[in-house]
């Protein structure tokens, strides 16, 4: 199911939590196929900002970077263990964006 061709576009699943789903019409998960030149998580973030979000961009990014307080998970693993913005995703990957909660 994982595609190995590194230059074709890949279908991945985006997941949202901690309130970020509000930016995506309350979708907790979205299947998307970014264009073939979007291969890394860094580029994926700007692509999501530019193509999937219509309002409250500040909830997702600060400029080109993810805003502080959002945890990124690659198949349920913290992206710090996966080279963060440099991670090259594969078809079938689940990339989650979870905002940290502070209430109690």
């Amino acid at each position, binding site marked *: 199911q994982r595609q190995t061709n590194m230059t074709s576009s890949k279908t991945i699943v985006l997941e949202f939590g901690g309130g970020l789903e509000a930016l995506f019409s309350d979708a907790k998960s979205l299947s998307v196929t970014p264009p073939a030149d979007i291969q890394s998580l860094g580029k994926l973030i700007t692509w999501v900002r530019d193509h999937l979000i219509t309002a409250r961009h500040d909830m997702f990014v600060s400029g080109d970077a993810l805003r502080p307080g959002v945890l990124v998970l690659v198949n349920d693993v913290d992206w710090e263990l996966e080279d963060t913005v440099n991670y090259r995703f594969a078809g079938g990957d689940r990339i989650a964006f979870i905002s940290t909660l502070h209430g*109690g």
Partner: protein
Amino acid sequence: RPTMSTPLPPSSVERYSRQLLLPTFGVRAQTKLQTSRALIVGCGGLGSPALLYLAGAGVSVLGLVDRPHDVVDRSNLHRQIAHADARVGQSKVASAAAAARALNPHVVIETHAEFVARNAVELVSTYHVVLDCTDNVAARYLVSDACAAAKVPLVSGAAIGMEGQLTVYCAGADTPCYRCVFPAPPPPSCVGSCDAAGVLGPVPGVIGTMQALEALKLLGGIEKTTTLRRKLLLFDAADSAFRTVKLRPRARECPACGDEPSIEVARFAYEAFALGRDGKAPVGGVTVEAPAANA
């Protein structure tokens, strides 16, 4: 049934018999509990079930702290089940202490007037585990920094709306602190609170109860169990779905828990930091105190 050689007094054998009978827990863990000190920071939606289950289980000392002068509000009661309608308007810490004592009069309750940058490290240093049951960004960095400095395990819970999160920080050399995972605070415009965004009672209920469970595992040192070190539990109450994800290890360069920590908790300006300013250089040299919070 425990044998007569147990150091537990007869009253404890009756009260804790269902834990003593449990092979995973037993006399060994109960004996450790009887000398254990746990601190709950925030006596609200998370703190309520956490303090009841820790008191019921028989920790030796239960520390309770919340915002200075915070009182029980009627709007708390749908989720803050340790309080009572008749105690609306009373001190929240005093009300929480009354609830813990009513369940188990053998637990020593220590109430603290405030949990602020000035006293945080000293306060957590006397406990074996700390539960972060607060409700705001400044308090979460303060609790974590204090536990990092004092090397005390921190069971950190959070809940809002229909979602909850739970992990264990500062529990061993490879376990991160809050600042390892979230080096910078979110923009204030992105921060929700239960008072503004609402919350369904069982959501902090589940997370706070799980915080007590994690604390009991840490205090009892029970074998054949694992805690949520380097794991984050995500709770989606809308679908009653749970998910556990893997977190990064401790960052050696972390300013709070790293090999050469640079944050001096007592002098750090937590409220300014939570608003996006430099916490190490408070304006005019005055340290702004971060209040502990209740949720």
